[in-house]
């Protein structure tokens, strides 16, 4: 039996495959050879075969038949075997399958092995993929190794303990004694992993947090030494000593100082020192500053320190490195509520970020800008945000439009400015405006009584330019229906249109391909309403008769005595009609055809929202053609049971 081919040989061969099919064939052939080798319980080449299997697994091919072989490798005495075996276990096994439990005994033995590199393999595997059952069984061994003087093992045991605690939180207590002098270590690896372990324990348990608060002075001292100490070649990164450890200590300090005045005070000085002395020319220095800022903002720091932190973020915003700008915006977004005034000082820089090329930065700048809008800066900010709305990618437009509407509603300096702003949004991003904006805007316009004439004139003008943006068209139609009399009566600044021109425009909406059924509903409703305001009633009747072969016509007038409800539909979609006392929703009718000879009915549900509990009355007008001649039938429904509207 020839020896199985070597790993590198296999890799080279597979890479010569020119097609997916060719590759698959090679893989299948090799898998077959490996399978028979496994069946023969070949100890010599098991390691080589599993390694090849792992390569094929990375290419995406199934390798589950190698799982047990990994376990055999782990149990072998040879280090080469164990190395590949543990790697295979981490890649092929997962804790959801029972087979992984077979590893437990091997790991236990290896944790007590005489060679530290074997112990290391076991710790690494356990810390990477140990299931809760395994962790329960082996926690004692890990705890033992946490107390060893061998720093190579101690650091690994610490991170393994972190994993055990994540899997089985109840076991946290048992690691407490071993943490006693972890921070007295000189070895940076042990220090780093110890800080990670302490962080995990403090985050999980308020008792632990209280217990470890006493470590603050020691942590401050370690951090100080790192900053003040001279060049240390072993831990230096671009002139900074062990940035990884610095960042983890800062994070632990954050957790310890949070909601505790004494601890926060104890760390005040060192935080100020790090914030002012850290070199900012490279990413590594900025990483430390970033963590420092997060800590300052989260603990009970004095105001001077907080201002220092926000200013660091302000400087970050001006950094050429987009990653730095990104984290600055993210952090500012978190603090804008609590430190609003300090963040306001950087408003112009934030607004500049709206023009950034990176999508994530733009989004954050937009969110932050909206958070910074207030009564004082509304005009200036809105200018920038509207400009952004004009030019931004479609994915932003809906959120931006909503944000503008909200801000305008809160801080509009005048009604006219408010209407103008709404107009601007509808005309520039009208198709992206959310569905619920339309009724909200209508409500807003209704309430701005003195602006009715101005509003309807502007909306009418906008319609003349563009009828493609549905929300704009819907709002405009509704306004014309309500205030059409103001539009034609000369109350506006510009030359007023005549009634027929207005009807032309509305009719144009009915026939346009661009109009959705909802929009058509709005425009037909508007035409109907104008029957009470305009004099060209005949024309209106004609339009309605054309667009409804069988139409229910209920018309609305703002008559407080008899609040008639009116709307119309085309046996298709339903418009959402908004009027002063009622809101109506028409659902689709059960059919478009009323069967002949009383063989069936068509049902349509009309939902009425009647918050002012006005009496409900319905007038029905049926128009149809019978043998070529038009017929009209009128009916009234006056006997809605009082319970339905009271």
């Amino acid at each position, binding site marked *: 039996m020839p020896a199985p081919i070597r790993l590198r040989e296999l890799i080279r061969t597979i890479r010569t495959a020119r097609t997916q099919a060719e590759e698959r064939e090679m893989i299948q052939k090799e898998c077959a050879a490996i399978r028979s080798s496994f069946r023969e319980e070949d100890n010599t080449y098991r390691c080589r075969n599993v390694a090849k299997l792992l390569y094929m697994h990375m290419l995406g091919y199934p390798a589950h038949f190698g799982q047990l072989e990994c376990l055999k490798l782990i149990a072998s005495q040879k280090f080469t075997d164990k190395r590949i075996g543990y790697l295979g276990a981490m890649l092929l096994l997962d804790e959801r399958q029972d087979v992984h439990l077979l590893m437990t005994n091997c790991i236990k033995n290896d944790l007590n092995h005489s060679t530290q590199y074997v112990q290391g393999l076991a710790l690494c595997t356990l810390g990477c993929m140990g299931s809760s059952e395994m962790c329960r069984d082996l926690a004692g061994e890990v705890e033992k190794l946490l107390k060893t003087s061998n720093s190579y093992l101690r650091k690994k045991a610490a991170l393994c303990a972190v994993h055990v605690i994540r899997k089985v939180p109840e076991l946290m207590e048992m690691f407490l004694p071993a943490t006693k002098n972890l921070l007295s270590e000189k070895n940076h690896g042990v220090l780093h992993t110890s800080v990670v372990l302490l962080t995990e324990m403090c985050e999980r348990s308020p008792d632990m947090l209280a217990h470890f608060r006493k470590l603050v002075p020691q942590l401050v001292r370690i951090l100080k030494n790192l900053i003040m100490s001279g060049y240390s070649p072993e831990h230096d990164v671009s002139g900074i000593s062990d940035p990884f450890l610095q960042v983890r200590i800062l994070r632990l300090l954050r957790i310890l100082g949070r909601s505790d005045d004494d601890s926060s005070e104890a760390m005040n000085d060192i935080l100020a020192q790090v914030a002012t002395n850290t070199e900012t020319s490279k990413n590594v220095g900025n*990483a430390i500053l970033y963590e420092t800022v997060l800590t300052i903002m989260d603990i009970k720091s004095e105001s001077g320190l907080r201002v220092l932190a926000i200013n660091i973020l302000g400087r970050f915003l001006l950094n050429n490195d987009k990653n730095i700008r990104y984290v600055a915006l993210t952090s500012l977004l978190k603090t804008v509520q609590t430190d609003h005034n300090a963040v306001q000082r950087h408003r112009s820089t934030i607004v500049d970020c709206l023009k950034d090329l990176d999508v994530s930065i733009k989004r954050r700048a937009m969110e932050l800008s909206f958070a910074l809008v207030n009564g004082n800066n509304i005009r200036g900010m809105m200018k920038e945000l509207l400009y952004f709305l004009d030019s931004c990618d479609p994915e932003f437009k809906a959120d931006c439009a909503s944000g503008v509407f909200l801000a305008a509603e809160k801080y509009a300096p005048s009604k006219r400015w408010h209407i103008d702003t709404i107009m601007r949004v509808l005309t520039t991003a009208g198709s992206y405006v959310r569905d619920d904006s339309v009724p909200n805007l209508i409500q807003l316009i209704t309430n701005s009584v003195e602006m009715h004439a101005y509003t309807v004139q502007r909306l009418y003008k906008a319609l003349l330019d563009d009828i493609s943006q549905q929300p704009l068209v819907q709002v405009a139609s509704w306004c014309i229906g309500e205030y059409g009399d103001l539009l034609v009566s000369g109350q506006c600044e510009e030359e007023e249109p005549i009634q027929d021109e207005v009807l032309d425009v509305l009719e144009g909406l009915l026939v346009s391909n661009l109009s959705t059924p909802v929009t058509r509903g709005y425009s037909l409703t508007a035409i109907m309403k104008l029957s009470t305001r305009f004099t060209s009633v005949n024309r209106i009747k004609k339009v309605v008769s054309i667009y409804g072969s069988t139409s229910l016509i209920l018309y609305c007038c703002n008559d407080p005595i008899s609040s008639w409800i009116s709307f119309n539909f085309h046996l298709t979609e339903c418009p959402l009609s908004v009027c002063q006392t009622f809101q109506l929703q028409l659902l689709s009718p059960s059919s478009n055809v009323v069967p002949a000879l009383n063989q069936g009915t068509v049902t349509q549900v009309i939902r009425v929202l009647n918050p002012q509990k006005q009496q409900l009355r319905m007038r029905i007008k049926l128009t149809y053609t019978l043998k070529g001649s038009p017929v009209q039938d009128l009916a009234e429904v006056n006997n809605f049971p009082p319970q339905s509207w009271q």
Partner: protein
Amino acid sequence: MQFMLLFSRQGKLRLQKWYVPLSDKERKKISRDLVQTILARKPKMCSFLEWRDLKIVYKRYASLYFCCAVEDQDNELITLEIIHRYVELLDKYFGSVCELDIIFNFEKAYFILDEFLLGGEAQETSKKNVLKAIEQADLLQEVRIFLYHQVAEPIREIDCQLDSSWSRAATK
């Protein structure tokens, strides 16, 4: 850290290290989708993105993308340093590392990663100590596997401010 992926510009996986329990099927789906998302990004974009409910940090070195998924509380900027440290370790071990080194010696890449990170966190912050440990472990191997080394494009940082001290550290 939840996982780390290394993949080529064509989307081929060169290394996948998972620190959270997921089935093979789930891992494949995540890898495929995330790789596509990152490959679609333009060079001038940020190294960070929010994807599904994860924070992703990635950086391209020559023909390889190094991509990590980190937790909400994790510092993105220091994650970039973690990635860079791993690249430096590979570079020192292989001597001017290139993608082919990682393809042909993938198990070594894993061994090095497992001496640097454990359970998703850094276990050793000294470059020297990580390399020393790997060296010693290699000596223990009963069957010496020599490095299959190809001369090809070395891994260098691109699309970022290449600083002379960084490139010096990477070439040593």
